[in-house]
């Protein structure tokens, strides 16, 4: 469904990703783990079109998306739930969710999608008419995920969904991600929180200094010596 072939990308003169290749099959949940500065966020930003790859290609459902802008990639059905929530602070939760359905394919079905999404997030349903910025960090993360689902994405990507959240909220976030995976949406997660994310995913890539150093089934990575030592602190 998604395939990166030997992608280089970075900011200005600094190249962060070096020849990154990875793929995500339809219906799969895949994770990218790695230390900070490894290039995980850069990978997602490159896929979604916020950054242009300087070399290599990115294909989504057979179409070359390497040179597309973010809004064009989103139109094709990829959605990113960004690091640090990134809600529209002065809009209500409801307006935020409708903004999620901005993309043409989702716009006409917004009402229907909203109903479905709210079933998954009962807490968000209670807060529909509150200003987004008045919510707590955990609630904001839930709204951000719900907003991502409003786009009816074919591929949903999460960037560090646990960042800055209390342990108890992290558990809730991952249980939501689990249930999203179960509904059959294809998912790509980037995380520091290796333990949780490997339990949620089918397959994983380990990124170090902008290069893919390991690729395996998630369960296998959990028992991999290198992963255990470097990321699980065992």
């Amino acid at each position, binding site marked *: 469904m998604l395939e990166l072939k030997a992608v280089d990308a970075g900011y200005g*003169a*600094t*190249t962060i990703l070096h020849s990154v290749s990875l793929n995500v099959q339809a219906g799969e949940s895949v994770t990218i783990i*790695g*230390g*900070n*500065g490894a290039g995980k966020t850069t990978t997602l930003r490159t896929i979604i079109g916020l950054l242009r790859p300087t070399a290599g290609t990115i294909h989504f459902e057979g179409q070359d998306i390497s040179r597309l802008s973010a809004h064009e990639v989103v139109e094709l059905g990829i959605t990113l739930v960004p690091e640090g929530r990134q809600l529209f602070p002065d809009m209500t939760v409801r307006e935020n969710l409708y903004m999620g359905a901005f993309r043409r394919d989702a716009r006409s079905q917004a009402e229907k999608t909203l109903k479905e999404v709210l079933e998954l997030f009962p807490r968000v349903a209670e807060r529909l008419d509150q200003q987004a910025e008045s919510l*707590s*960090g*955990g609630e904001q993360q839930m709204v951000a995920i719900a907003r991502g689902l409003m786009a009816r994405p074919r591929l949903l990507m999460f960037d*560090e969904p646990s*960042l*800055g*959240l*209390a*342990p*108890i*909220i*992290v*558990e809730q976030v991952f249980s939501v991600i689990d249930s999203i995976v179960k509904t059959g949406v294809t998912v790509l997660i980037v995380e*520091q929180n*290796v333990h949780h994310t490997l339990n949620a995913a089918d397959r994983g890539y380990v990124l170090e*200094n902008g290069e893919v150093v390991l690729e395996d089934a998630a369960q296998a990575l959990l028992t991999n010596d290198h992963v255990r*030592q*470097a*990321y*699980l*602190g065992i």
Partner: protein
Amino acid sequence: MTQDKTDSAQRRGVIALALVLLGILAIPIAMDDQFIYHIFVTICIFAALSTAWNIVGGYAGQLSLGHAIFYGIGAYAAVMLTNLGITPWIGMFVGAFFAVIAAIVVSYPCFRLHGPFFALATIAFLEVFRVLALHFRSFTGGATGMMIPLNVGWEWMVFRDRLPALIIAFGLLLLTLAVAWWIRNRRLGFQLIATRERESAARAAGVGTVRVRLVGVSISAALCAMMGSFHAMYLTFIEPEAVFSLTFSIQIALFALIGGIGTIFGPLLGAVMLVPITEFARGWLGSGALGLHGFVYGVVLVLVVLFMPNGIMGLVQRFFEPDRSASEAEPASVPAEARASEARSFGEDVLQVERLDKHFGGLHVTNNVSFSLKEGEVLALIGPNGAGKTTVFNMISGFLKADSGSVVVRGPDGQFHSPTTPGDYAAIGVGRTFQIVQPFASMTVEENIMVGAFHRHHNVVDAREAARETAHRLGLGRWLHAEARGLTIGGLKRLEVARVMAMEPRILLLDEVMAGINQTDVRRAVDLMLSIRDSGVSIIAIEHVMQAVMSLSDRVIVLNSGEIIAEGTPQEVVRDATVIQAYLGKEFANA
């Protein structure tokens, strides 16, 4: 990069500068033409004004479009006093004195504003000065302007020849350049730039941001006023529309922009390049093409902004300066070393917090929070997001005033004090980091840490020494000369700690220094914290990373909805039912 390379680049720079200055003096003398003399006097005047402006507009990053105020005050002071029979050599300093007063009165309120709003406010002040100068006719001559009596001689700064005027203008230019160079290489310069880059981080590093800006703008205003005095004598006539002019203010800033804003010698280069072009254009086209020269001006400004935003100096530096990027792999910081957690004994209280209360609107963010910190202790502050942890930090570092309650800190004298501002807290030895890293992005790693080191060391050499030592201790040694903006998040977090450590604090407040770094780095960071603790510093840390909390802290306080819900050793706290329910979750309890 090597020291040699920097040195030779520096030497080439000095030679180039000397040549430019020599040219300014020698060319007109050699050509001995009235018009050429005029051009070079004008170059000196604009170069000096622009260099002076750059202290505020460049170093401090406050884009003033009202600098004509100070120039105008100098001009009017000199002309008025000359008319009273007092030499402009005195008038110059009288003007400088009043300009400094005006600068402080105008800037103090304006410094609360940034970017375009500061620029707007300075424009508004300039308009007020202009309208007032027009209004008080008896004083200023109003719209008809003022002439100076034509007494020729050095005493009156009026000459038949152009050479003496050039010498005075050149002297003033040298003075201004020397002052600008001196500031940039002293503590004041570092503090001005730090204030520009991140105001709150500068305040946390003990920089009196308002004070340094006022000092900067005062120096800048005094220099502008002196140039104004001389320019008035040179032109022999002044009027409000010409001296308190927005266009004139923009011109001053324009030369700095074209030369390279924030650099020491950029404004000089800008003036050298642009003044001859505009003066020749004025000479050739005359009044036949009204507006053409202004049009060219505007277009040049737009083009420079679009195609060389770092000015001429930006281009020059690309050739001279070595690469400053930071794209190397991360090194290990401090050697990891296992430490058994033993029961430790602590000294007396160094910080006491009593019943802190804080409301934001209807939200009770801190509710009756009391705790104390003992000497040599590591206290962890944990709790869910929005529990009020960072608010507590802001109140015990002077960034936020509590609604009620008190914070006292034991000073080096053994007495308890009640600091109020971030500066007070820094002075008494409380250092803090920020949850969202606040590097001085355009400064190098070394310079970033030096800003902290200046808290203890006034001298640049000592501060540099201290900064290097701290950098090596925190594993930043390899990036001393890299710009902070190039560091990774992990590097920035370490830089944040390094800057505080360079202040040699007695109490260290760490706000989530481990968020967003991986487990291996967390272990390194824990070891670093322990080594800091062992050097006699008391620490309060806000953390979500429980692994770090468990191995680092002697005592843990749990905040929830602004209230302390538990307090005790790490082992006690993680077994506490309330804490598990509110914060840790059941998985942690089962682990």
